[in-house]
């Protein structure tokens, strides 16, 4: 009935924003104070990360800007704190506040790229497995099952270790970021693949897919143009939660000393170096990066949780 009305009277053109404001998702967002808070915090971290080069008193990745005489200074509210080092400095004279801003930047870049890589891999393999079935399905899903028996961090460590052994331990920063993104991508694709595959199994027997086949569309076109949009909902939920996981994984790798180089400290690297001084009274080197990391991951996780509930038809 509804469909036929639309055929006769085309719906008035409305902007994407206006459509979003009318959606259930937005209504649910407005109802949840937690989601709004989490969103605000995430947004704040994103803005800080993007603006890092302009708002940081120092570029912590440029060794020429580090002055050893400024090392191990306490935060500004202590008597011997020195401006502009609001949150103190580390043992090399690196401004902790700037290092946190730049660290957030690195964490988010690595996290987002990691999600893109793992999402791409997982969606592709999930689509193929679900749509074609048979031997291909078995093959892909058994590989996924095997991988699920290992913790993701272990796989990331293996990928990282093998690549470093092959390429030599000395590499430039961009290569190191690429490597860490790859190792995160390779450790997190399974969840996407499994989710997409099960949705595809449901979708592929529906009439519109059969119709597509009848009019002679090729499998890739059907998969990407018609099936994919219908299975994307759950993928967004996974992607949000995996963003937090990817950030934590990067921090863990850096904490273990296999992630990004020391001259380019991410939050995990800062926590590792600061850890040495934690019991010696120089708590600020580890505390602020730790807080930033915890805050960022918590906010993204809360957002993911809300998104999962909001998109779950059974809860609506």
């Amino acid at each position: 009935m509804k469909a036929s009305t639309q055929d006769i009277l085309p719906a008035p053109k409305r902007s994407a924003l206006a459509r979003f404001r009318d959606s259930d998702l937005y209504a649910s967002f407005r109802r949840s104070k937690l989601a709004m808070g989490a969103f605000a915090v995430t947004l704040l971290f994103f803005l800080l990360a993007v603006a890092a080069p302009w708002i940081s008193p120092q570029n912590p990745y440029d060794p020429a800007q580090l002055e050893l005489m400024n090392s191990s200074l306490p935060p500004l509210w202590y008597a011997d704190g020195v401006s502009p080092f609001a949150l103190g400095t580390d043992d090399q004279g690196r401004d902790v506040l700037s290092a946190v801003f730049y660290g957030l930047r690195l964490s988010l870049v690595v996290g987002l790229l990691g999600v893109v890589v793992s999402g791409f891999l997982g969606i592709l393999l999930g689509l193929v497995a679900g749509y074609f079935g048979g031997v291909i399905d078995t093959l892909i899903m058994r590989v996924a099952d095997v991988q699920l028996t290992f913790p993701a961090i272990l796989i990331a460590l293996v990928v990282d270790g093998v690549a470093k052994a092959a390429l030599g331990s000395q590499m430039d920063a961009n290569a190191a970021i690429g490597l860490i993104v790859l190792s995160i991508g390779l450790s997190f694709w399974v969840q996407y693949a499994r989710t997409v595959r099960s949705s595809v199994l449901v979708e592929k027997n529906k009439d519109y897919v059969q119709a597509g086949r009848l009019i002679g569309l090729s499998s890739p076109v059907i998969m990407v143009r018609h099936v994919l949009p219908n299975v994307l909902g759950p993928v967004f939920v996974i992607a949000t939660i995996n963003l937090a996981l990817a950030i934590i994984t990067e921090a863990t790798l850096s904490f273990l000393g296999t992630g990004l180089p020391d001259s380019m400290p991410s939050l995990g690297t800062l926590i590792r170096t600061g850890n040495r001084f934690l019991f010696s009274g120089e708590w600020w080197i580890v505390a602020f990066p730790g807080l930033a990391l915890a805050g960022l991951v918590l906010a993204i996780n809360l957002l993911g949780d809300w998104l999962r509930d909001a998109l779950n038809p059974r809860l609506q």
Partner: protein
Amino acid sequence: MLNSTLKAFVSATALAGFLGLAVTGPAQAANVFRFAFQGDIKSLDPYSLKESFTIGMHGAVFDSLTTRDKDLNIVPMLAESWETPEPTRWRFHLRKGVKFHDGSDFTADDVIFSANRVRAPGSNFTTNVPADATWVKVDDHTVDMVLKTPNPIALYQFSTWYIMSKSWAEKNGAVAPTLPSATSTSYAALHENGTGPFIISEHQPGVRTVFKKNPNYWGKVESNLDEAIFTTIQNDATRVAALISGEVDWIDPVPLQDAQRVNSSGTATVMAGPELRTIFLGMDQSRDELKDSNVKGKNPFKDVRVREAFYRAIDEETIAKRVMRGQAVPSALLIAPVLYPRASEFKRPDYDPKRAKALLAEAGYPDGFSLGMDCPNDRYVNDEAICQAVVSMLARVGVKVNLNAQPKAKYFAKVLAPAYDTSFYLVGWTPSSQDSHNILFEIAGCRNGSKPGRGNWNLGNYCNPKVDALADSVEAETDQTKRNAEIKEGFETIQTDWGFIPLHQQALAWGVSKKVTLTQRPDNMLMLYWVSKQP
């Protein structure tokens, strides 16, 4: 995911608890000394790696012909006495009734075997026994060392030349020394058969090593220990926590930032003292092109101006004050002042970044260049932090340094013979002879094979024939005044060549439980036979 993380955490905690139990469990009756170092005992082969801590550990299980007492004087050990019937002939009278840990007798054959093995290719200790020495057996307990030229310091390095058993080595295929870079470990690297006061009953590289008292030791031992258990604790905070909680009785080093905390803990104190070790930087001056630089077709370090620029760009005073927190003495020489009477005549060239920049421009690098740097991260006090400080100081004169800081096992395998794979490196050195000759010969001698062992530790192959000639005459010179003048000339040559960048002598900082009494020698070797513990 959360679930699996939780599981991993629970099992890790359980495992840690289990290990802790295993360490503390069985040793209630015996008097056990537990100790931890930031690095590992690299190899049990006593000719494999000249590294003070490892050498000290070998000293617990091996004996040498002569040794050094608590004040570093040379005193008899396996050689009861010795004389020089001719200036070039040294006769050693060996102690009788000494047995190796496997029960076999110690004889002159073992001494001759060890003298050959320590000078064989692959040994890291070739300089400990004079290269021109021929060893002759007189009888089972008398042996002669015949030299080509008189050598007043022939015995200076005998204290770290440990005597191995000939029959044991032959039986176990351990006749050749183990290279520090060896990828497969040899029998001698994992087992010992010395004559020393302790026997290694268990050795898991990187995990733990257990020393048991040798009940059949020939001498009287000051130590009252029944057992000593060594573990590696790389993390500073963990190491200090282990000392304060009483889990270990000795740690080295106490991180500089934690000295106060250890002293106020009530269970342990920091034992500090000057160390003989000099921390310095070296530059690859022999390759035609640096292995990891953006300068192609030539090696910038071959230009003396570049070396001076590096020297002048590094602010050692600040490193000593901030990175070392005052626990280091900047040094102009590659040797500690107490080991060379005329050291005070040398002054460190001033820190002058402007001059450094000008020199680089003059040498054709107005915008600097980039290169790699190798650095250990578990060997010397704050080694990696020193390297990072050097990186940022060099950045300020336009030189971009890519730091490769690694644990010492990987670091030494990379930078030592045969590869000498480094452009710019940090090393700390204590001359095992306690004498300047060792610096001129082993650190600054040309790596050209003119004499076995020359330039063994000259990782950048700084080479000036004048230094070699001086080293040779210093070796044979018996007149102290003349000798010191020659040494001075040698050190001056190195300084005008800007051959090395000496940084500082670090301060020793051992964390010692109040239950333990021991002797700290400035060569930073922990000698287990001087360790006692209240049971």
